[in-house]
């Protein structure tokens, strides 16, 4: 067999791309100041080893474990209440946006006003969920002070945006929605919603909500870093005090909390389908 039959014909083009990419990569590395040898400089190494040595043994005193347990409960509470308020935002906006409930979808003329109205609410939901929830939490901490309230409001806004968009898409996505034909023969929108859309998509809606509840627990811990209460708040104060043993206990509690909520969410979703 001739070796020339097996030449890679686009090898030269691929090679130039890789070279150009590596050349462009170096300014990025400089911007990020990615110099790993800094980690092993003498002063930094000493600080790192000192900090790491405080990690073991983890702090297992009764008082501290009680505090961690209370913070975990508060985290779950913040996530649940926040998700409840998110439902208050998400469900009405989903019903307003979804085209499954829209009478103007099967008229012959192009309906400008409903499209514009729906697009306005959709843009509002995009704004609510594109701003990272920590930024919302930072703003709310300055409005209502430190503590769980800021976290609840931040989760309510962000997750309300996410839930609204996904609920609307789920309602539109049931195959062969009989609701449209029901509306054409004169059923009201409420009847279509209650007797057609919800029975068809209830499992998917509930499953997505439970998944978002689990995400909300993780977000709450992260928002605690900026003062919104819960496990994150405690983690940040332990880190500021360089108390590595407390940090290790809180990290274990966090991993345990995430694992528990993940297990709960998976079992609820499995029992739904």
């Amino acid at each position: 067999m001739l070796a020339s039959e097996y030449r890679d014909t686009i090898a030269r083009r691929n090679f130039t791309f890789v070279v150009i990419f590596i050349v462009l990569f170096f300014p990025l590395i400089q911007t990020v100041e990615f110099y790993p040898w800094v980690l092993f400089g003498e002063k930094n190494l000493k600080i790192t080893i000192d900090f790491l040595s405080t990690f073991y043994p983890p702090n297992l005193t009764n008082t501290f474990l009680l505090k961690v347990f209370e913070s975990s409960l508060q985290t779950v509470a913040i996530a649940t209440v926040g998700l409840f308020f998110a439902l208050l935002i998400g469900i009405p906006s989903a019903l307003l946006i979804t085209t499954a409930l829209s009478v103007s979808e099967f008229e012959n003329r192009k309906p400008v006003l409903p499209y514009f109205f729906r697009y306005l609410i959709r843009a509002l939901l995009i704004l609510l969920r594109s701003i990272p929830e920590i930024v919302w939490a930072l703003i709310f901490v300055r409005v209502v002070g430190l503590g769980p309230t800021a976290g609840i409001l931040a989760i309510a806004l962000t997750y309300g945006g996410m839930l609204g968009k996904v609920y609307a898409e789920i309602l539109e996505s049931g195959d062969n929605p009989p609701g449209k034909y029901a509306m054409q023969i004169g059923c009201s929108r409420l009847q279509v919603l209650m007797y057609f859309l919800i029975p068809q998509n209830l499992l998917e809606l509930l499953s997505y909500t439970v998944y978002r509840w689990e995400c909300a627990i993780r977000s709450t811990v992260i928002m605690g870093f900026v003062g919104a209460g819960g496990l994150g708040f405690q983690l940040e104060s332990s880190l500021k005090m360089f108390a590595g043993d407390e940090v290790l206990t809180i990290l274990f509690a966090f991993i345990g909390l995430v694992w528990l909520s993940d297990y709960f969410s998976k079992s609820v979703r499995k029992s739904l389908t």
Partner: protein
Amino acid sequence: MQVDLRLSEIVAYDNLENIFKFLAEFFPPHTEKDFLKAVLIALWETLAISIVGTLLSAIFGLTLAYFSSEYNDTIAGKISSDFCKFLLNVLRSIPELVWAALLIISAGLGPFAGCLAIIFHTTGVLGRLFSDALENVPPEAPGVLRINGVSNFNIFLHNKMSQLTVQFSSYILYRWENNIRVASVLGLVGAGGLGQLLSFHLGLFLMDKACTVILAMLLLILFVDGLSYSIRRRIY
């Protein structure tokens, strides 16, 4: 398990007026030339953090995924593969913000700590996704190659990787979209980029400048989402 919501305090009439006055301070956003230049520099820094972080985690994640899924034959191989799986799980359970807060102690304030935090967490996530995909490759072709004496590394390189390139690129792009949000926010604990600028201005209650930074974050996120969408369309 109480949460102390005090909702009635928030929506009480005179408090509502205070809240609206507070929110009104955000607009109009501050558009002075020097400040916009600083915002652009921070934006570039955030973009660089996310790109370097995602790419390096792809490389490290692929290495760890290879070691955790390809060496299950010998006992030593099984032990090392279990260790790599455990390492990936630890790396991905800890959120990026926590990693950043820990790494600032070793790496100092600035974008290096943020980039390392993204690398640690995303290596775990991508390594887990990659190793699951590597194990779920249809086993007939690798089986035939093994019988004929091809080494594990060559099977990985020529069979599995050529099947999985598109799927891996899709995972990497998905993590890039996530990491740009994370990179914008990591600066809040001091890891550089737009977040550091935001926490600085919010701390001084300079609300109009904070509004400009938030708008810059939004634009950056939308830009990266659009870019990743167009790259996906060209790959598929």
